[in-house]
């Protein structure tokens, strides 16, 4: 138990507390800890990529081996993964010289990046244009007072964020300019919406501060599997 629970808790405490203290104490060892821990974390994150790759091969390899559901598509995943990995890690097909930038656009790796990764990523992302439309069709209905607030705010901003807003209410006399839709939408963003955002931010900050504190002090330890509370 000591090695499985106590040591991790001690490590978390030391690292977390040192980083909090470093905010107030620009002195050895806290300052140095603050500087180095970020880099340490990034390095551990790279090991996590490797762990992820290992798991990906394990999962899809298993599926192919057992001829599980959609196993033929798993071959696509594995082939894509290995091809990209080998070309990139060994810098096959450029960049010129081993020291060059791995993602140089004229290398093989660059080619795979631009011909597959980029279009797939952008297209997946662009599906949002459709989903945002279908979601607004369903959600923006004046069903309750709350839903009406949501609807009205969204509607004004929708119009106000395009040149459309200028055409719709551009004719208003100067004393009613505050009702001009671009002005109104800016007002909504910078006053009531900002008020809501601020309250959310303050609340979140407190939630995070409290959770961080519980983690540092070992009160919250579900990440260890929640043993010995």
């Amino acid at each position, binding site marked *: 138990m000591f090695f499985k629970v106590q040591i991790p808790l001690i490590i978390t405490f030391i690292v977390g507390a040192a980083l909090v203290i470093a905010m107030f104490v620009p002195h050895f060892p806290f300052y140095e800890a603050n500087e180095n821990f970020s880099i340490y974390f990034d390095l551990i994150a790279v090991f996590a990529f490797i762990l992820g790759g*290992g798991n990906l091969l394990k999962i899809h390899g298993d599926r192919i081996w057992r001829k599980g559901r959609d196993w033929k598509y798993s071959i696509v995943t*594995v082939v894509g993964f290995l091809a990209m990995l080998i070309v990139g890690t060994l810098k096959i097909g450029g960049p010129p010289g081993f020291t060059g930038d791995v993602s140089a656009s004229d290398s093989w790796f660059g080619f795979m990046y631009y011909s597959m990764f980029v279009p797939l990523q952008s297209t997946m992302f662009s599906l949002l244009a459709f989903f945002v439309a279908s979601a607004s069709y369903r959600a923006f209905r004046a069903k309750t007072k709350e839903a009406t607030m949501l609807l009205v705010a969204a509607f004004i901003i929708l119009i106000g964020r395009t040149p459309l807003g200028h055409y719709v209410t551009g004719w208003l006399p100067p004393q009613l300019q505050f009702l001009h839709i671009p002005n109104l939408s800016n007002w909504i963003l910078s006053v009531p919406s900002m008020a809501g955002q601020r309250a959310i931010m303050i609340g979140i900050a407190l939630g995070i501060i409290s959770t961080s504190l519980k983690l540092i002090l070992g009160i919250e330890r579900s990440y260890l599997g929640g043993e010995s509370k």
Partner: protein
Amino acid sequence: MAHTFELWIGALLTLMIFSFLYKDNPFYKFAEHLFVGVSAAYWMVIGIWSTLMPNLVGRIAPNALQGVINMPEDAQPQYHFIVPAIFGLLMLTRLVERISWLSRWAMAFVIGFAAGTNFTRYLQSDFVGQIYNSMLPLVVVSSGHVAIGATFSAIVLIVGVISALIYFFFSKEHTGAFGATSRLGIWFLMVAFGAAFGYTVMARISLLTGRMQYLGEWLATIF
């Protein structure tokens, strides 16, 4: 030639993903599985070349990497980087069932790092910073007169922040005046959500425009 080839692959994959909007189909499945494999490898390769090599191997043993990456000629080994290397290797024990518990030590470092950095970051910019930003005069005077519009905005802002904060109170029943204020708070939250949603639509349409232009470019090479 390479560019046309690239454009063709890209355009076909684009159409495969879009086909999902109609319904799930083998083309989408193909694109999806390819994307998973390619992207996992992409992040691994980038991690290796932009971080692992220069910042770990290069720092512990700069001479070992001559000809592999460019290191400053006078680079000295920094042995304290063995610490993250050990943690990283402990992380990999996950792949071996019997000793996988060792990865908890590395996880403990990650959690400690998360807690420490998040604590200070949110305390500073999101808690203290937002309180500071909210302390503004409720009555705005400009050139000797009360500016009605600005005053109204200032009051709405403060009422909004306070009432929405009341909504987040967990340890008090939301009834009576407290409950009414908290309901007002929800309205402000709803306005914030509606505004953000409305604002976002633009971003999403832009993305689609980008894709359509890309397909247009591809079609132009055919006709």
